[in-house]
């Protein structure tokens, strides 16, 4: 096999899908992202690598669905033939980039004859993106020829040959046994429904679910490029395109696994720029999450950050300098997440942020390069590296972020009889049955 040229010397690698398949009716954006997530997880489950999805233009592994000649010297050739490729690690900015031929009929959970199983191909290509070359071993996922679907992404187990090759590059992830060979008597399990990392709760919202159009929020955060609005035990989620995923809020504890069940709200949330873990604050305590699972050893005290034990009102990462800002009452602090220490000279008076109110609910960065500050039902925008609120603010949170119209309410009275009130005023009969509701999100 071709010798593997190099490997990544950092262990935290960012990824994003830059260009989605054009034929999006076959595989939606969320499904593509979920399949990429699981294909990368196959490798990070056994090797000490961590992958995190990011928004914006910077990512170690840029994923494109493209076709024909796409200006990298390796043109695709229409259906069949070459179906994908990836760039090995190295110094080039193209290192790790992974391209799929958009002329292929990409599928998931379809019979072999119906197209190209995206998960199987993605696992192979990400193998290249982290430094593996082709092998002639028949059972290896790094064999160059497409061999059909590999089954359920949640249950996929790399062939032993591939595990050995990745361990030779990066070592063994803690808690993984490198001596355990696969059970050869095991037969392949049939594919099962994909349990996506996103909220797919089938539990109907409780009566205490808040009204998103008529409330203030405990915390707001940009996580993996998406916006999360937290209120009480619930949160709403917006896609990177700022589309509300569901009018119904999801329950915090059903998604963010590991928070104490008696936690009735959070104060502030932010995604750490150093390793993309997510930090939740409540009073004097904080929790760190890897994806949506809490890390061991938490909660800990906010004094770890050099913050007072009274906690924080707001936390966000300023895109301008990649520093983390904490706001409490009329003071703010600047923290360096890469060095894990508070910058000298803080706290300072929030008056330095002209036009930003005191006693914030929370703040967040957004993909447009601006910072957003939330208080009550209103928000303020600060552009780029400015420290002054833009003209025209405050504006309505509900109207601009949460698909509310003027004077709209989605109170239980409007939502409790099996109908869903949409912002356009359309009424849709619910498919609720036996107290459960099956939802399909296609955006």
């Amino acid at each position, binding site marked *: *096999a*071709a*010798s593997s*040229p*190099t490997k990544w010397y950092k262990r935290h690698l960012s990824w994003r899908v830059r260009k989605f398949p054009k034929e999006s009716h076959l595989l939606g954006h969320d499904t593509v992202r979920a399949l990429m997530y699981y294909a990368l997880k196959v490798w990070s489950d056994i090797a000490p690598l961590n992958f995190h999805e990011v928004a914006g233009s910077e990512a170690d592994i840029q994923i494109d669905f493209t076709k024909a000649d796409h*200006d*990298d*010297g*390796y043109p*695709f050739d229409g259906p*069949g*033939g*070459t*179906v*994908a*490729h*990836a*760039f*090995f*690690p*190295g*110094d*080039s*900015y*193209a*290192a790790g*980039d992974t391209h799929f031929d958009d002329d*292929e009929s990409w599928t998931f959970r379809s019979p072999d004859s119906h197209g*190209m199983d995206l998960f199987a*191909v993605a696992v*192979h*290509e990400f193998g*290249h993106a982290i430094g593996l*070359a*082709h092998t*002639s071993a*028949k059972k290896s996922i790094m064999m*160059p*020829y*497409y061999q059909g679907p590999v089954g359920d992404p949640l249950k996929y187990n790399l062939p032993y040959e591939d595990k050995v090759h990745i361990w030779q590059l990066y070592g063994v992830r803690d808690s993984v046994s490198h001596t355990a060979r696969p059970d050869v008597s095991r037969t392949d399990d049939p594919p099962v429904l994909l349990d996506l990392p996103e909220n797919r709760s089938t539990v109907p919202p409780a009566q205490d679910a808040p009204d998103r159009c008529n409330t203030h929020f405990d915390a707001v955060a940009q996580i993996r490029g998406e916006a999360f609005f937290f209120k009480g035990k619930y949160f709403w989620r917006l896609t990177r395109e700022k589309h509300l995923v569901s009018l119904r809020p999801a329950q915090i504890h059903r998604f963010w696994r590991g928070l104490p069940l008696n936690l009735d709200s959070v104060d502030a949330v932010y995604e750490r720029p150093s390793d993309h873990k997510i930090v939740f604050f409540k009073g004097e305590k904080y929790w760190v999450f890897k994806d949506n699972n809490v890390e061991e050893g938490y909660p800990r005290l906010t004094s770890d950050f050099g913050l007072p034990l009274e906690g924080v009102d707001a936390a966000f990462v300023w895109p301008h300098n990649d520093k983390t800002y904490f706001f409490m009452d009329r003071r703010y602090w600047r923290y360096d997440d890469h060095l894990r220490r508070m910058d000298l000279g803080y706290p300072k008076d929030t008056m330095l942020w002209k036009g930003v109110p005191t006693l914030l609910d929370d703040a967040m960065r957004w993909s447009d390069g601006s910072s957003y500050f939330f208080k009550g039902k209103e928000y303020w925008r600060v552009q780029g590296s400015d420290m002054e609120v833009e003209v025209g603010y405050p504006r309505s949170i509900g109207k601009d972020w949460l698909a509310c119209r003027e004077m709209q309410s989605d109170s239980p009275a409007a939502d409790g009889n099996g109908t869903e009130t949409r912002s356009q005023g359309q009424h849709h009969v619910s498919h609720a049955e036996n107290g459960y509701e099956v939802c399909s999100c296609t955006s």
Partner: protein
Amino acid sequence: PQITKYKNMRSLKDWLSKFGYLPPPDSVTGQLQTKEALTEAIKAMQKFGGLEETGVLDEATLVLMKTPRCSLPDMSDAGMDSGRQKR
């Protein structure tokens, strides 16, 4: 139709070069590889693909070559290394 495609010798050589079984075309001699070199390249490709190494372009070999696959080469160090810059 799949088989006839690789009866075109240039297509065969292109394929073998693309995936690293033949050296890249020389600027002076073009693709004037010897018959022996071609046979050895086919054998290497057959071996990598798990087929019997006959050096003959039989049906199983042609089917293998038509199988959808990754663009990266199998046998050369002229792979898609990171030193190659995107245009």
